[in-house]
């Protein structure tokens, strides 16, 4: 009797656990889909990056025109300590060709003055503050593009030879989310919401 009751309770608890874990995964999907749905759209230029072999399993590693930032953009801010990655907020604005370029950058918090119309603050990370006048290397969490098996090689060979572009949605808090991948003006992949 008691054993039967315990078994029933265990099943109920297991169901609750499954619901909780599914809810966690579901909320992750929902958060990403809502960036895709309502985030500010920007276009970045895809750049080849070192090392040469960009193809890792089923994704390509990509760099962008904003993957290394001029120190002057930080407006005199400098970081002497090397104690791990810092959050960097980069303000972007579209140039004449429609590619979004960095206007200014700030460590740990967005710049005090809010972005004007046609500008957007993008959140990224930097783990290294170079000496002298070297550029600050940046990561935005959008440096990977997953592809169906066998389709990465032509893209890898094309990057650096002809212009590739990435359309990215940016959430209000600056989190970026890849939206679509373009070879010149041709759309290669577009992401559905779910």
């Amino acid at each position: 009797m008691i054993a039967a009751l315990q078994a029933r309770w265990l099943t109920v608890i297991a169901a609750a656990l499954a619901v909780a874990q599914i809810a966690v995964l579901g909320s992750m999907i929902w958060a990403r889909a809502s960036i895709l749905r309502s985030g500010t759209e920007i276009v970045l230029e895809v750049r080849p990056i070192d090392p040469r072999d960009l193809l890792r399993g089923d994704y390509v590693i990509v760099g962008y025109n904003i993957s290394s930032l001029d120190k002057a953009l930080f407006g005199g801010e400098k970081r002497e300590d090397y104690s791990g990655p810092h959050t960097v907020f980069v303000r972007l604005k579209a140039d004449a060709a429609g590619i979004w370029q960095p206007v200014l950058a700030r460590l740990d918090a967005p710049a005090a003055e809010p972005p004007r119309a046609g500008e957007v603050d993008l959140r990224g990370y930097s783990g290294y503050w170079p000496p002298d006048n070297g550029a600050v290397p940046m990561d935005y969490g959008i440096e990977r593009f997953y592809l169906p098996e066998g389709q990465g090689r032509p893209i890898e060979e094309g990057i650096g030879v002809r212009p590739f572009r990435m359309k990215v949605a940016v959430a209000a808090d600056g989190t970026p989310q890849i939206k679509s991948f373009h070879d010149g003006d041709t759309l290669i992949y577009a992401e559905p919401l779910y």
Partner: protein
Amino acid sequence: MAGYVSNLKKDIARWEADGLIDASTAAKLRKDADSRPGGVSFGLILSMLAAVLIGASILLLVAANWEYIPRLVRVGLIFALIAGGYVGGAILKGRGNTSFAEAAYILGAVAFGAGIALIAQMYHLSGEETQAIFLWCGGTALAALALRSGPLTAGAVLLATIWMNMVTFDTDWFGAPPMLFLGVVAVIWAISLWSQSAVARHLILLALMYFAVLHYVDTELVTVPLILAVASVALFGAWVLAPDLVDRIIKLGDHGAPIQGLLGFIAGMSPIQYMFQNDRLFLLIVVVIFAAVIAALVLGGRESRMLRWLGYAAFTYEVIYVYVVLVVSMIGTAGFFLSAGLVVAGLAWAITRIERRLKAPPAEATGGAT
């Protein structure tokens, strides 16, 4: 463990038949034997391997054939596996089928991790692997708590250790291992008391030794391995003085406390002796290590074969270490091999003699080998 329980039940039946104990005592003893937390049986290991293999196959299916299976179907498949693993496992456990229940739980936890990976793939997320593993570890620990599962508790320890290792090595340079790890394993230790998983506690102690060594590599402070060594000696000493009390408090199973104590001592002293290799203190440190290993063998080696073998291994390791440091520079390669052979032969002779001596007298006195 299962073998022990069935042997015990045979003995209880015999004692009852011979009139050594009455029927109610026999019933109580049987109940106690049944209530013992089952150790790791062969069936449990096999069913768990099956769960991991099936989980891996689903992971590969999800990852590889994604243009043929629509995204939402793949997500739905993962969700169904999570629910099926946990609820199905609970139903199996209710029916008394513990091995398959635990295997189903593991399938559920693997599916949760697969779900995190699938979402990263769907939305092209990069650079968030450490958070992903941390989330997976948290979900697994929660499942271990809710379902009172020993294997899931052990799984949470493994994931926490992988996370700690990734945080240490994932940055552009060698970073400090995260202090948060201590809090994480403290929580999992508490869960392991509820889920009765001695395996998880052993894994936590091993992970802590690794954590201490990483901290030493990061800081190069002699205090870090020193704390590990002293704490290990304290654990061993406490066990020698009050074995039952220590076993009751930290619940590491048969001779678990002294074994972990000796391991921790060696893990702590190794970096210390490496640090002082060219120092006058080196010989003193070596003497302390030899004395401690011999003391461990004398104090605990008789009852525990595992501890004895660990002691021999530590002794051999130390002999070879000292040998390489002190002697290799003085003699040529051929001489090195010859004298190394002689030293190892001497060690083998000594260990054989100790083993024979340990086995001979108790065999007459108690009629049982260790």
